[in-house]
């Protein structure tokens, strides 16, 4: 049951200033949190931490008028971002996917 990973990702996503409690980023982070709990539902059934997280998300969504539908926060950077500083200054950090070493996949379509 990986509910603690969901919790820590949510707290790290909302610790920064860009996700102040009444900002769109906060709702996006909440939706990501809800998505994460849904993904762990099967293995966390009966776990108290899991159920309190689910209820906590419900409460926070209600308090901050967050809609269920909508963008989720970008995949969180797990390591301090690399890349050249100039590019990073150009646009918000969330616009540069910074997964540590992502597992890339490929799909192709061609011919007849």
């Amino acid at each position, binding site marked *: 049951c990986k509910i603690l990973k969901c919790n820590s990702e949510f707290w790290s996503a909302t610790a920064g200033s860009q996700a102040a409690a009444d900002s769109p980023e906060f709702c996006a982070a909440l939706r990501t949190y809800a998505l994460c709990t849904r993904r762990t539902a099967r293995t966390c059934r009966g776990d108290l931490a899991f159920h309190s997280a689910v209820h906590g998300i419900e409460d926070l969504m209600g308090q901050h008028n967050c809609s269920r539908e909508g963008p989720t926060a970008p995949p969180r950077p797990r390591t301090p971002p690399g890349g050249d500083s100039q590019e990073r200054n150009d646009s918000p950090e969330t616009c540069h996917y910074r997964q540590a070493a992502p597992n890339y996949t490929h799909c192709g379509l061609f*011919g007849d």
Partner: protein
Amino acid sequence: PHLRTFTDRFQTCMVRGAWPLIDNDYLNVQVTNTPVLPGSAATATSKLTIIFKNFQECVEQKVYQAEMDELPAAFADGSKNGGDKHGANSLKITEKVSGQHVEIQAKYIGTTIVVRQVGRYLTFAVRMPEEVVHAVEDGDSQGLYLCLRGCPLSQQIDFQAVHAAAAQGTRGPHGASPPPAAPGDTFPYETAVAKCKEKLPVEDLYYQACVFDLLTTGDVNFTLAAYYALEDVRSLHSNKDKLHLYERTREPPGRASASG
């Protein structure tokens, strides 16, 4: 067209008409496939639509559309990046060869897309982080799209049977045998093999797809389509050991498994 899925399964599909290639929280890709010859079961991609969804302070929603004989180097609204948002440059279109090769970098989701026009038809290739591939809000419709699940069994063509038939000069199964390329213009099996070997010396599935395409269309441009498809795998696939595939997969969609 020939499809290589995110799980490295390789299939040849009819999938005539409009089909979803990718469908997740960040983007949708839809292709329209049309028969390469009247009455042929073999189809090729004549239209491609990519929708990049609105994302935070990075990009507004952007639509890219390519058709047969029209490969634009800009989004449908004429722009070449993500719009007016602060992070707009995290989505960029680059024209590599005018009218033939376009690349789209979506840095905010770590994704690279290559669209080509080879002969009259389009080819598509994408590199995407696994986490983005599976980012689908409601789990129950988790990725019912071709890049993830492959095409339905009923849509698959067994092109090796066509090869065998062509090699013996008889008709293949369910009408998929290679009709004469064009009235009065047939492509002998040996010629198809020789032309494909010129560009694809390794006799993997890309080579076999090339032979199939030449037998079913008589259009030598399909040699280049298979060649560039392999080049795109070379540049986009993270596991170089999986560049060449030798086993096709005829399992029904939905059961992800090791390729072969």
